[in-house]
Every structure is written in C-alpha cells, then in structure tokens.
C-alpha cells in the first residue's frame, strides 16, 4: 500500500471510525468487496481515491457550514462571557490537537540542556 493511500484511509478511519464496509461502500460508491480489498491492502485506482476524498470532503463541508452559521448566531446573540467560554473550548481542543500532531520544527535537536 503506498503512503498516499495509507494516509487517506487513515484519515477516513479517523473521521468515520465506526463505518462498516457497507457504509463505506454507500458513501464512496465503491463496491463492498472492493472496499474490503482496498482496506486489506489492494492498490486503489485514481477514481477510488477521488471517491474516498470526496466522502471525506462532504463531511467537512457539512461541519464547516454548521460551524460557521452557528458561530455567526452565537456572535449575534450571546453575551461576551459565553463567547469567551466557547472560544476557550475551541482553543483547548485545538491545542491538544496541535500537541498530538507531529511538527518537524519541534525537533529535539533544538532543545538545550540545562
């Protein structure tokens, strides 16, 4: 399995951890037996790759839309104290995500001994 394929399948599993083969097939339009083979390591065709990418993007679009519209309603209706709490929650989640992710600039070689 090439790294590009590995990466997109990992992304899919992380966004839809509970999807069954049938659900993956339904979302991507790829035949269920083929989905099984792909997740078992068979090389993906370009069209299959694009179908998985599209399924990932669809989820992103719906969440992005909801997030933007809800944020706008919050900004117009909520008090500053509530907005502050929401902002803190978002920043907290972001910070944990950033700590989880590998950032090559975070090299240990840059750390000086005390």
């Amino acid at each position: 399995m090439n790294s590009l394929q590995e990466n997109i399948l990992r992304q899919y599993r992380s966004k839809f951890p509970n999807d069954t083969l049938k659900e993956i097939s339904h979302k991507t339009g790829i035949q269920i037996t083929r989905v099984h083979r792909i997740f078992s390591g068979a090389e993906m065709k370009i069209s299959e790759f694009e179908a998985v990418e599209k399924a990932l993007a669809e989820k992103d679009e719906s969440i992005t839309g909801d997030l933007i519209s809800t944020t706008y309603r919050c900004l117009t209706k909520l008090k500053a104290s509530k907005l502050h709490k929401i902002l803190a929650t978002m920043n907290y989640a972001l910070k944990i995500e950033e700590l989880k992710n590998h950032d090559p600039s975070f090299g240990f070689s840059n750390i000086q001994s005390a």
Partner: protein
Amino acid sequence: MNYMITSPERMILESLNKSSKNLKEIHNCTSLDPQLIQNVLTNLLSRNMVRTHNQVYQLNKNAPECYINDLNEKESKIFEAQTLIETCIEQSIEGQNSLFKFKKIYLSPRDKKMLQAMLINIETFLNNVNKNDKASTKDESIIFWGSAIYGNLLEDLVND
C-alpha cells in the same frame, strides 16, 4: 489571555513532580503517545517549566512565577475538571471502565446533613490515603463528588 495549560501537559508535570524521568519513563508513567510527550516537553522547556540534563527531564523548581500562576489559574483548573469529567461521562455512557452517577432529588434538611457527613467521610478518607510516588500517574484515580441546588445552578446558567 493567559496560557491555557492542557491535561496532557498537566499530567506530564505531575509525573515529573514525582521524580525526574527520561522519555521512556515518562511514557511508561503516563501512557501518552511519545510524539505528544515530545511536543509537550518542547513546550514546557521553552516556558522554562522543565529542565533537561543527559536526556532526563526534571521540574524546574525555579520556574518563572507567571508560568506557575498559569497552572493555578482558575479558568485552567475549571477546564481540567470539566474536560476530565466530560470524558468520564462519555466513557460511562459507552460502558467503558469509568463510572459516573448523577442524581436529581429533593433532600430534607436531615437528609442534607446525612449526605454532608458522608461527603466529609469521603474527603477525609481520600486525604488520608498514603501518597505513593512510585505509582504511575496513569493509574491514579480521578474522583469527584459534590452537590448543588438545582435552582441556583440554573439561575447562573441562564443569567451568566
């Protein structure tokens, strides 16, 4: 805005507070992902909260006061409790190992006194549990208890 210290950062600081450790030992003590540990340590080193010598990390007892204050900051503590309790509720609902019980009930003044006495017992018991610096931080139990008056909570929730 103050620096919001996250639970993984706090856990690593708590682990180093027991004893200085190398990366592998921190991993064994916290079970956090090694990459996450490295990123947290980089953060803590840049903030002078932690020192390193021969690949062993230790708490900087002379850390700048402003960074120590971040640890004890009210919002940061509320966030820690909130996120841990929230995760505990989710795990409890999903039938995992965590247990979360929650009850809404009218208590007569006598019942309130009885409950208060039991809560004091719990607190006394927990305060007297022997401190074990050799135990892994990941194996520590998170325990929470308390009570509030429903109406008071709702009043704050709605009017805040």
